[in-house]
């Protein structure tokens, strides 16, 4: 490395008054070969000319991330999808059961339990020490959304599993006493699961929000609505795919409502003021969430129109809704990961907040001294 690159650019530091230090970070200027923005070229005596290079936006330690990126891998966003799908499917199955729609009830019960089993696998497999999964049950800790979620899942699972088992009972066993008891218990079991299902669908938003990850923490008001909307849309999608057309009316209506809530809440995240929003509106997370929006919108429109009559349209629309939910979860997850890898997402908002507070204090001190 020769010094030539350093001689012709503004090399003194960013930041007020104080010189320099490793500053800036190249990662959001776009383009493949990114250059850092340098600060004004200012000597200690102020005599040097100002360069045309834009002032550095923030300081950092060699552009290193301040935070640790989440150690969670694809299994966690996948769980966000399966957990939401399971919860909303269970809720749909209870409604279907109570209003005499056996096909939709069966779809919801079996789909909900299958998604729950997938969720359990994903959650345990993502642990650093999977064989210690039961340590989650040592404590009940209200301050930890993961602990709260564990207990919600524990309360939710038996009902969901029992209802699904009753659905899947082979015909030969249905007549037996245990078989009849199980089938009788299916309805209350499903209802008991449905009590906890809204918690299963929504706690994951708090799980992500109560972290230092800027993109997740910043969107803590919108995320629950994105997640419950997404859950409802995916379960409705499953209902549209599997249940007979004449029973799937509620699924189609739920698809429309869920999709609307998800898309509106998701758009509200994108419109949040402040730099952190860029984690959602740029790059890979943006593409994932755009894809989600198109799929969800398309699925919902299908549900309201063609899916009433055409079996094929219902299946295609349902699959689109489920895919939209998957993309949404991965998009939100990726936005968070991205926001930890770039120190700008940590330093810039915090520096602005700190400077604003200092200004306020100075003003208050000035007022006090005038009196």
């Amino acid at each position, binding site marked *: 490395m020769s010094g030539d690159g350093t001689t012709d650019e503004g090399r003194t530091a960013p930041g007020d008054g104080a010189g320099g230090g490793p500053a800036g970070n190249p990662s959001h200027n776009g383009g493949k070969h990114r250059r850092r923005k340098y600060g004004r070229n200012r000597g200690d005596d102020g005599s040097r000319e100002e360069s045309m290079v834009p002032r550095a936006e923030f300081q950092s330690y060699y552009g290193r991330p*301040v935070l640790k990126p989440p150690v969670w891998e694809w299994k966690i966003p996948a769980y966000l999808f399966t957990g939401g799908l399971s919860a909303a499917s269970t809720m749909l199955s209870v409604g279907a059961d109570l209003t005499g729609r056996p096909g939709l009830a069966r779809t919801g019960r079996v789909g909900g339990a299958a998604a729950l089993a997938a969720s359990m696998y994903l959650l345990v497999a993502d642990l650093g020490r999977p064989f210690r999964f039961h340590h989650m049950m040592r404590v009940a800790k209200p301050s930890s959304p993961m602990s709260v979620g564990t207990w919600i899942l524990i309360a939710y699972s038996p009902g969901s599993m029992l209802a699904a088992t009753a659905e899947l009972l082979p015909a030969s066993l249905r007549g037996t006493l245990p078989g009849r008891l199980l089938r009788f218990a299916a309805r209350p079991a499903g209802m008991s699961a449905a009590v906890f299902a809204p918690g299963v669908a*929504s706690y994951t938003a708090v799980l992500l929000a109560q972290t230092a990850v800027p993109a997740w923490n910043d969107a803590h008001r919108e995320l629950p609505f994105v997640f419950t909307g997404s859950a409802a849309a995916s379960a409705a999608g499953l209902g549209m795919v599997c249940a007979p057309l004449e029973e799937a009316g509620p699924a189609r209506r739920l698809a429309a409502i869920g999709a609307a809530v998800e898309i509106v809440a998701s758009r509200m995240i994108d419109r949040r003021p402040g730099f952190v929003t860029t984690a959602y509106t740029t790059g890979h997370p943006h593409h994932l969430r755009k894809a989600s929006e198109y799929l969800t919108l398309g699925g919902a429109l299908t549900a309201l129109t063609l899916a009433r009559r055409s079996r094929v349209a219902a299946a295609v629309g349902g699959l689109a809704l489920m895919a939209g939910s998957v993309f949404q979860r991965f998009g939100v997850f990726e936005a968070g990961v991205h926001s930890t890898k770039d120190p700008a997402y940590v330093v810039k908002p915090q520096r602005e907040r700190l400077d604003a507070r200092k200004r306020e204090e100075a003003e208050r001190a000035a007022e006090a001294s005038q009196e």
Partner: protein
Amino acid sequence: MTRENSFHGPLADPAGEAGHEDHPPRMGFFTDTSVCIGCKACEVACKEWNAVPEDGIELLGMSYDNTGSLGASSWRHVAFIEQQRPLGHQDAGLTDLPVGPSSTETTTEVVAEALEATERGGANLGTAPVDLGFPSFDLPGAGSGVENRTQFRWLMSSDVCKHCTHAGCLDVCPTGALFRTEFGTVVVQQDICNGCGYCVSGCPYGVIDRRPDDGRAWKCTMCYDRLRADMEPACAKACPTDSIQFGPLDELRERADRRLADLHAIGVSEAQLYGRDPEDGVGGDGAFFLLLDDPEVYGFPPDPVVPARDIKSMWQHAGTAAAMMVAASAAVFLGGRRRR
């Protein structure tokens, strides 16, 4: 019960709040970076005492910092920052001497670009080799003349877990592996941790991390074993300039205030305390610092906030969303009954 206090705001006695009765005073670190000489004795002492495994021996191209950052297997990290400005009234004695500019900016740029290519954005740099583009045929600063001569100062700072009053990692730990000790510090019980990784994302300082080969989360314990035996932590014991000072937090805070006043009096106006204020976003740090530049220059977040501060609002929004979901799931069954 002071439930309001347990998530956010000033809290006089974290150990007592965690249920310890009759406990010793809250212990802490005051790291005075103005006297740090960058010897890394703290890093070595910590590794030795705590048997922390090696986590990559790499040249990172970041001045003399080849540790990179705190992590699962780096519980002390000495940062090196080269700057083109004098320290206080210091005269570097460079007037009319033909010295070249410091290569800080250039190295920073090279390092920052290399970091982007690493798997976790450099958060665990040191655990994997990174091509920094060296060597080159020119010396750093070669080809520059007297006109490029600059002032120069070197900032060094030994970073460590902050043992926050309101610890994000401790709040979110679902197994109870992380706990508040009688000294007010925060420690992971390795026989309990199941490696869920939530603490990694809960920490607003990016301190705690999971060891990939081991699967559990690790961080500084403030030498809990030594504390219980009335000994000071290994890093503080090893520090030759008393840059790392260990003691009851109240005393350290007084001492830090005096040191800050002294430094301001002799013209080091940029000196500032970081993590000293019990009113800050984490209720004050158990390990706090005297810095000579903005916190972010050292890799600290300028204004960290414990994620649980907004816990009430988060659950309220989640509750509203859940209620809407119930209402929607019920509403879709109304009026559709005639189908069957």
